[in-house]
């Protein structure tokens, strides 16, 4: 009896999950296909880029600086034991550009901008502002959703590049200024081991993360039900799901990129 109940509830959960994924995919495709429709929404895209990008610069700078510092300390302490401190720089650079840069930027921006998107759209929904746009003859997905998704996709690689750079400044400060590793060796080893494709890999991932949190958070906000409580729930669920998806997707993207490298004959 218990087993039967558990199977039934697992089946319902699975069906619910598949239905929701289907809804999100349809929501995304119906929104993104409006990108070429008239009127142009370039001003709205720029406005959202300012919010997602410019207004995230401060928090990204601060977090990336301390991420670079902390990571360098830990790697330095570990590598010192095996007498490999010359590799601290490239290890930090590879870790930041391929994994930590895109993932931490994704998590930070999803929490900040994604949460704001869900809350804003949720409030507009419960206050009938979205209905008002609808009956004014305005394509709400083109006006409200598509610019946010496009802005997130465009801003995330830029913010990740900033994160990578500032984190490496932090690493330089820790390794060269504080623990006095040789500057030339630090720089040379990074130049030897870090390739452009490693940075591009992280930037590609970050664009995918931007797409994911923007779609999830706008979907949650757009479909808010109820009043203030509904807005809170939509924001919470949007941000949490975005963060989980970013971490899970990172693993799959990493493997996908490795498979691509194998297919085109690149090692590492």
């Amino acid at each position, binding site marked *: 009896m218990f087993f039967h109940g558990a199977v039934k509830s697992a089946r319902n959960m699975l069906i619910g999950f598949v239905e929701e994924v289907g809804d999100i995919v349809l929501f995304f495709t119906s929104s993104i296909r409006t990108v070429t429709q008239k*009127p142009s929404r370039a001003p709205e895209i720029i406005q959202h880029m300012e919010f997602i990008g410019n207004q995230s610069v401060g928090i990204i700078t601060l977090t990336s600086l301390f991420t670079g510092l902390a990571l360098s300390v830990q790697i330095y302490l570990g590598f010192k034991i095996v007498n490999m401190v010359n590799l601290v720089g490239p290890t930090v650079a590879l870790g930041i550009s391929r994994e930590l840069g895109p993932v931490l930027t994704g998590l930070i921006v999803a929490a900040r901008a994604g949460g704001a998107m869900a809350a804003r759209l949720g409030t507009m929904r419960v206050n009938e502002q979205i209905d*008002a746009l609808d*009956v*004014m*003859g305005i394509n709400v997905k083109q006006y409200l959703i598509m610019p946010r998704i496009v802005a997130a996709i465009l801003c995330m690689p830029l913010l990740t590049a900033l994160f990578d750079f500032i984190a490496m400044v932090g690493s330089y400060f820790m390794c060269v200024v504080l623990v006095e590793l040789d500057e030339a060796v630090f720089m040379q080893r990074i130049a030897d081991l870090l390739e452009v494709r490693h940075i591009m890999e992280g930037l590609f991932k970050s664009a995918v993360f931007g797409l994911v949190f923007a779609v999830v958070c706008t979907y949650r906000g757009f479909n808010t039900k109820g009043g203030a409580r509904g807005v809170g729930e939509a924001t919470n669920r949007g941000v949490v799901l975005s963060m989980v998806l970013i971490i899970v997707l990172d693993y799959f993207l990493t493997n996908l990129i490795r498979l691509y490298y194998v297919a085109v004959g690149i090692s590492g």
Partner: protein
Amino acid sequence: MSEVAIQITDLKKTFDGKDYVLKGIDLSIPKGSLTAIIGFSGTGKSVMLKHILGLIKPTSGKVEILGTDIGQLEPDALTRFRCHFGVLFQSAALFDDMTVLENVCFPLLEHRRELPRSKVVEIAKEKLKLVGLDPKHDHKLPSEISGGMQKRTGLARALALDPEILLYDEPTTGLDPILTEMVDNLILETHSHRKGTTSVMVSHDLYAAFRIADYVAMLDAGRVLLWGTPDDFAKSDIELVRKFVDKGMKHQ
């Protein structure tokens, strides 16, 4: 009978496939009239309004607006068709990040892109003047003005594109008696200023409906119980109509 603006034929709607919210609505709203849709809560008034706006699709039956069956329109065409409507929402539904003037300019900037900005502002100011809003409030946010002013702004925004059909979704619900009378008068004045515009007001404010409407339609259990002039309602011997009229008038 004069020309018809809104023709609803055997409109049925169910959301779950079992219980019908609308059980076969037949209604003709004459062009240029002010029609009030009244009824107890949960009788399908708002669902019917959403059908008129094309926000939900009928399970069966059809809704023709100015001769166009809106159920047959593709989504993009339906979006464009909605320019025929102006809607005043119960909450006014103003965009809270825009000023009063920007709210009224917004539909013009979206749909009349050929107009220079100065002309858009001129039209918006004219509409705000029409609804009696003092220009000193033009640059205030909706949160900085009173509920009555928000309604006026909402109406000015609804009028911005000079729509052929004006819809009022429970415009006086939750307002105090003085504000209610002000909004009723505003609707009446707006309607009398705009000859040829068809106005539909969904309300359970019976007093207002009888005072300002040319025609009244009463919904009950998903059907039109009675459609006629306020006089027809006053003379009706249908028990539910009598009960509604007596209670509504006593309440006022």
